[in-house]
C-alpha cells in the first residue's frame, strides 16, 4: 500500500541527545492519524523533520511519492503539507484577516508578490468563509495579538486550512484550551476529513481526543516509534502502558 506521507528510519541528535532514533511513520491518504507519547519522546521533533524545520541525520521523508527529506519549510508547504505549532504562532501585530492572507497563495512566486495587491476579492471571500467556518469571522479586522488563546488556535487552524494543503499536521490542537473548544475543534477536524477528504496527523496528549478521532495511532517513546495500530490495538498494548506509566522493563533490570 502506498501512503501519502511516509517517514522512514528518521534519526536526529542534538549535541549528545538522541532526539529521534530510527523513527518511522506512515499516514494513509484520507485518514486521521494520531501521534502520541510521553513528554520528550520526540513527537514535535519528528514534526519539525517532516515539515523541513529540522534536518534529519538519517532517514527519508516522502510526500505523495516524492522525496522531500531536505526541502525547506516553504517548499514543503508549497507541495501541500501544512502544520500548526504546539504553542500557537500567529502574526500578532497584523489583523486576523491579514494573517489569513499570508497563507492564501501557497505556490505563487515571490516576485509576483512585488507587483500584486495584498489580496484579491476572491481571496478575501475565501478567507472570510474559512474564518466563518472556525467561528471567528466577526474578529477579522482585529489585531491578532489581542485574541484569546483559544481563538488563536482557531485562527492558526484556519490559515493553515485556507492554503488547501493535502495533509495537515496539528501539534496539540487541544492543548491549553477549554473543553467546549476541544469538542469544537474535534468536530471541525472530523467534518473536514469526512467532507473534503483531508488527511490529518495529530500530536496530542489528550487521550480521549486522540482515541475518538483517529483512525490509526503511532506511539513514540524516548525517540523511537514504539508501535502503530488502531486506537483499540494501542490501548491494549502492554508496551504503551509501560511507556506512559514508567517502564516495567527498567524494574526488571
Amino acid at each position, binding site marked *: 500500500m502506498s501512503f501519502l506521507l511516509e517517514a522512514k528510519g528518521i534519526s536526529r541528535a542534538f549535541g549528545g541527545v538522541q532526539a529521534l532514533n530510527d523513527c518511522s511513520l506512515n499516514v494513509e491518504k484520507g485518514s486521521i492519524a494520531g501521534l502520541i507519547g510521553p513528554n520528550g519522546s520526540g513527537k514535535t521533533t519528528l514534526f519539525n523533520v517532516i*515539515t523541513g*524545520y529540522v534536518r534529519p541525520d538519517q532517514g527519508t521523508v516522502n510526500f505523495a511519492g516524492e522525496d522531500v527529506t531536505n526541502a*525547506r*519549510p*516553504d517548499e514543503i*508547504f*508549497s507541495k501541500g503539507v*501544512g*502544520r500548526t*505549532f504546539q504553542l500557537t*504562532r*500567529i*502574526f*500578532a*501585530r*497584523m489583523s486576523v484577516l*491579514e494573517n489569513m*492572507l*499570508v*497563507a492564501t*497563495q*501557497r*505556490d*505563487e*512566486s*515571490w*516576485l*509576483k*508578490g*512585488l*507587483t*500584486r*495587491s*495584498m*489580496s484579491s476579492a476572491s481571496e478575501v471571500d475565501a478567507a472570510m468563509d474559512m474564518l466563518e467556518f472556525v*467561528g*471567528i469571522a*466577526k*474578529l477579522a479586522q*482585529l*489585531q491578532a495579538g*489581542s*485574541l*484569546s488563546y*483559544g*481563538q488563536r488556535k482557531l485562527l492558526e487552524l484556519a*490559515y*493553515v486550512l485556507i*492554503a488547501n494543503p493535502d495533509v495537515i499536521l496539528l501539534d496539540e490542537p487541544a492543548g491549553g484550551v477549554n473543553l*467546549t*473548544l476541544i*469538542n*469544537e475543534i474535534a468536530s471541525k477536524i472530523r467534518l473536514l476529513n469526512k467532507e473534503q477528504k483531508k488527511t490529518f496527523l495529530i500530536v496530542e496528549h489528550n487521550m480521549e481526543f486522540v482515541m475518538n478521532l483517529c483512525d490509526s495511532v503511532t506511539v513514540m517513546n524516548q525517540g523511537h516509534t514504539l508501535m502503530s495500530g488502531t486506537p483499540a490495538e494501542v490501548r491494549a498494548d502492554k508496551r504503551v502502558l509501560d511507556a506512559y506509566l514508567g517502564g516495567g522493563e527498567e524494574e526488571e533490570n
Partner: protein
Amino acid sequence: MLTKARIVWIGLFALLALFPLVVTTPTWTSIIMFALMYMAITTSWNMFSGYSGYVALGAACFFGTGAYTAALLAKHWNVPASGDLFWLIPLGGILAMAVALPIGLIALRVRRHTFVVITIAIFFVFQLSAINASFTGGTSGLQLPFLPWGFQDFNVPFYYLAFAMVVVATLLSAWVRQTRFGLQLMAIRDDEDRALGLGVRVWAVKLSGFVMSAFIIGCAGALYAIYQGQIYPQFVFNPLFDISVALMAFLGGFGTLAGPLLGAFVLETLQLWLTENYSSGSLYLIIFGALFLLVIIFMPQGVVVYVKDRVTKREDRERSMIADNEAQIAGAAQ
C-alpha cells in the same frame, strides 16, 4: 478615491511644496530642506526595517555610498558646475543598491540583536575604507564642482529635489504596504519561522526589501554631496546618522507610514533650529535623549500609533468583541 485621510496627506504635502514660496529666508529653506531629506531617508529605511522588524543600523553605508558616487563621478566625468550635477543623484541611489546586495547577503543571515550588531560592524568597514582608501581622498574628503548660484535662491532646487524624494519614498512605502510583498515583510516581522512554514520565501523577500530601501538613501547622499560641495568621510559615514534615522522612525511610529515622516520632520527641524539659535551643538542631544526616553516609556509604538489607538479606543472595542466571540463559541457548543 478621495478619502478624508488622503485629503490630509495631500494638504500637508502641498504646504511643504509651497513653503519656499512663502518663506524665502535661506536659513529656513535650508532647515526644511534637511528635514525633507531625513523624511525621505527615514521613510525609505522604515520601508524595510519598520515593516520587517530588522533594525538595520547601517543606513549611513548607503548615504555615504551615494555621496561618494556623486563626488567621484563628477570628478571623473568632468561634470560642469550646473544643474547637470543632479543627474548623478539617481546613480548614487543605484550604487547604494549595488552595495546593499552584498551587505544583505551577509547580514540577513542572522536575526534581531545579531543583525543589528552586524550592520554596525559593516558600517565601520565602510567608514574605515573611506578614510583609508586613496581614491576617496582620505580624511580630507572630496570636492564637488562649486555651483555659482545666487545665495538667496541657492537652496530652492535642492529643496524641491528633496521634496520629490519624500514624495517618491512615501508613495513607494505606501505601495509596498498594500502589496503581497509588504504583507510578507510584516509576517516576517511578527514570526519569521511561521511565515516560512506558510510558504513565504523569506530570504528573497528580505533581500529585495533591503536592497529597495537603499535606493532613496543613496539618492539623498548624492543630493547632500552636491549641496555641500565638499564631503568628508566622518560626516557622510557617520554613526550618529544611523542612530538618528532609527530614532526618528521609533519616535514617530516604527513600521507605520506617517510615523517616520513625522519623527524625521520634528527631530531634524528641532535639531537644526537649536543649533542655529543656541550654538552649543550638544544641547539637542540632551533634549533628544530625554524625548526618546519619554516616548519609549509611555508610547513604545511611537506617537502615531499611540494617538490613533486613543482616538479609535482600539483596546476597549477589541476586548468586548473578543469576549462576545468567546461567549458565542461556548453557546454554540451547548
